[in-house]
């Protein structure tokens, strides 16, 4: 017992350490990838400050190079960056002149709300539809599978534009410039949730169908359990396992999708900041966002592990 506990603590410790490594590695890769981007950072900044696209002279760029240390050897820049990381300092945005923590901090909540809500809604949609349509006669079943195949193939941006035009512009049910208001969050959330729901639904349905064939399901029926009871009490729990596993991955995909939803709905969030930062070569901000996203990913996967273990106690032992 104690031996197992020790092993378990050890495992968690190893996981925590590797997580930190993963996070820092992700940020480092980003750091170097950006240094590899051709073109001059100072030049970009200068053009950004003037709205021009010209080549500035070395003399004109000197103050910027001096200020941000662009002329330092790469390794020095990297060490500065990593040292900063361990002091909780992600650096200062080249363009916004604010600490990156602040740049990201302000945008993190809307993005998390968006992705979190999208994941939740996707789950509700996927489970609801699966429960109602798996093996429920030809019509319902094909309705369910068609809906899933359709939504799983929908590009986010297209869903967004269509939702916007139909529900905000034409029907005026939701605001067009929703910002972070609750009502304004509905359409962006649906934009992300609908394709994801289709995807999760397909996975859940496959599993659901298979689990329905399992002997223990028949056993439950032989005890006098109703069809709905079997679905809810026995099958569902098994069937959501793959979807849980996928949710960790989905969160990563949602961050990408969020960029698009934020773009269409003019919603604040790290997606927008990210695109701008990559375009303006705001290296500290890009690396900072990667760091944060990697951290979220790691946390999300820990949560997924937890959720999995909660649903499937077989894993708790391992």
């Amino acid at each position: 017992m104690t031996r197992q506990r020790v092993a378990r603590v050890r495992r968690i410790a190893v996981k925590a350490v590797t997580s930190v490594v993963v996070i820092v590695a992700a940020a480092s890769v980003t750091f170097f990838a950006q240094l590899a981007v051709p073109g001059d950072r100072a030049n970009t900044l200068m053009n950004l400050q003037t709205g021009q696209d010209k080549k500035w002279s070395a003399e004109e760029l000197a103050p910027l190079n001096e200020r941000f240390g662009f002329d330092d050897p790469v390794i020095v820049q990297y060490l500065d960056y990593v040292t900063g990381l361990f002091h909780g300092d992600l650096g200062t945005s080249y363009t916004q002149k604010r600490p990156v923590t602040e740049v990201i901090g302000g945008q993190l909540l809307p993005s998390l709300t968006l992705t979190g809500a999208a994941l939740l809604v996707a789950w509700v949609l996927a489970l609801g539809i699966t429960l109602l349509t798996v093996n429920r006669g030809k019509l319902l079943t094909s309705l369910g599978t068609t809906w899933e195949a359709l939504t799983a193939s929908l590009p986010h941006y297209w869903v967004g534009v269509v939702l916007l035009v139909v529900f905000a512009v034409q029907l005026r049910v939701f605001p067009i410039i929703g910002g972070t208001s609750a009502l304004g969050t509905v359409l962006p959330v649906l934009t992300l949730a609908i394709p994801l729901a289709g995807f999760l639904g397909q996975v859940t349905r496959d599993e659901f169908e298979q689990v329905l064939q399992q002997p223990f399901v028949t056993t439950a029926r032989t005890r006098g359990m109703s069809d709905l009871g079997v679905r809810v009490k026995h099958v569902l729990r098994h069937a959501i396992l793959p979807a849980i596993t996928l949710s960790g991955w989905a969160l990563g995909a949602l961050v990408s999708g969020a960029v698009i939803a934020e773009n269409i709905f003019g919603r604040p969030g790290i997606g927008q900041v990210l695109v701008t930062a990559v375009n303006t070569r705001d290296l500290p901000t890009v690396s900072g966002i990667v760091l944060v996203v990697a951290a979220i990913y790691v946390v999300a996967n820990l949560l997924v592990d937890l959720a999995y273990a909660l649903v499937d106690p077989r894993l708790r032992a391992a």
Partner: protein
Amino acid sequence: MTTVDDRPVGRADQVSGTATQLLRVENLRVSFGGTEVVSGISFTARPGQCLAIVGESGSGKSVTARTLVGLTGPGARVSADRIDLAGADLLHTTERAWRGLRGRQIGFVLQDALVSLDQLRRVGDEVAEPLKLHRWGNRAERAAKAVELLASVGVPEPEVRAQQRPYELSGGLRQRALIASAIALDPPLLIADEPTTALDVTVQAQVLDLLAASKERGTSIILISHDLSVVARLADEVAVMRDGHIVEHGPAAQVLHDPQHEYTRMLLAAIPSEHTRGTRLSGTSTSEQRVRKQVDRGRPVLEARHLTKVFRGPDKVDRTVVDDVSFELFGGETLGIVGESGSGKTTTARIALAILEATAGEVLLRGEPWSALSTDRRRPLRKQVGVVYQDPLSSFDPRWSVGRIVTDALATGRRPPSSKTEARERTVRLLEQVGLTGAHLASSPLRLSGGQRQRVAIARALAPEPSVIVCDEPVSALDVSIQAQVLDLLTDLQDELGVSYLFISHDLGVIHHVSDRILVMKDGRVVEHGTATEVFERPQHPYTRQLLTAVPRLGSA
């Protein structure tokens, strides 16, 4: 063999007409998409009595059982003249009414015991589920009852077990929990579909005792099995099914000891045991004596010296799985290794094959180093050692045809074929040797029957012309009659080619039938070692004795 007739032979009507009939089934027919799998069978079940339905795989036993609880399956067409349970018509029952009957009037133990409990729920909850569904007591009462039920089916530490989940229980415990759940509401009718198939003999004996106790209390039991010897312990009445028909039906003693139908006789003859040693199991004429080839007691072909294998588990704890195992296998001899599940049989076999490295000890091939060689030095010797696995299908590359599988093995052998035509000819010859034909060359193993697959596996093992074949449970997945054919084939080949077998099985009957000498393993150690006669007639070790008493028998023949 006679053509199948709709009317079974035997005297079912003679069986105890006195007891009231609980269940009456007349002319039951079930078909799936136009194929009839149950063709007009009739039987009755009486309180305090056990009706056994036996028959080979696919004969329609499980379909019949499921039909009795209204769960035949999707796409099934069921018809009957009558299905009555205690006077109530089951044929026109609504789904809602069925739910009232299942669990309360009819308890059902599913065939696949190991996966018939929801892995994600506590055993206690699973056992108590029928109670809950039929609104028995409150939560606390049900929990208490579940523990009580577990105790009643002989589950040790029932309080602890109730809190565990099925995957934390051994197969025997799971099977007992399943039975506990089926009898929770003390239904008058209990249907048990192959309740002992996946179990070790000792556990099997316990489960059968459990059912017997239930019968004593007045429950009517329908026991389904493909194993006649299992049925012998419990059944009052036996119905033999074949291809959806009941071919013979009568009191247990009579069906088992005085079978009327040829098929029943064939089934009985195919059961390997002490009595069948040295005889053929399959074929029309039983007890045909074999000519035995002499065992060459010179230098052992394969010799294991003090083999030990330690596995390190994911929890970093070492487990000794094989512990100081030594044996010698002589030319033309069959050495049987028997033992319960997990006793280290397969591990020993894999070490002998030099696929797995032993932690300590050595294996010699014809007195020369074998396990100690480097992979490259061993490779040329591999042709001398063949292998046949329990599950032939998974040992074939699913993309390969039968021909390719065997030809590939030929190429690795002592005399690799020099041309395509030669390869083909020899492949066909090998197939014919194991009872297949050249027509099977192009087929995929996926489309062969279990017995045919095992024949292909044997052909593959023979192809390189080995002197030893390691057989790891080669017949455990097969029906008795098929098993009989394969065992006959193996012994024939030994007579013909003088090959030695390291023969592993958990089935004492099979081991007794084939082996010259026997090793009994328990927890990785060899607890008994001797000739077949010594081990079976004068067992020294208490464990061996326990095994022998647990073996179900047909009774005195």
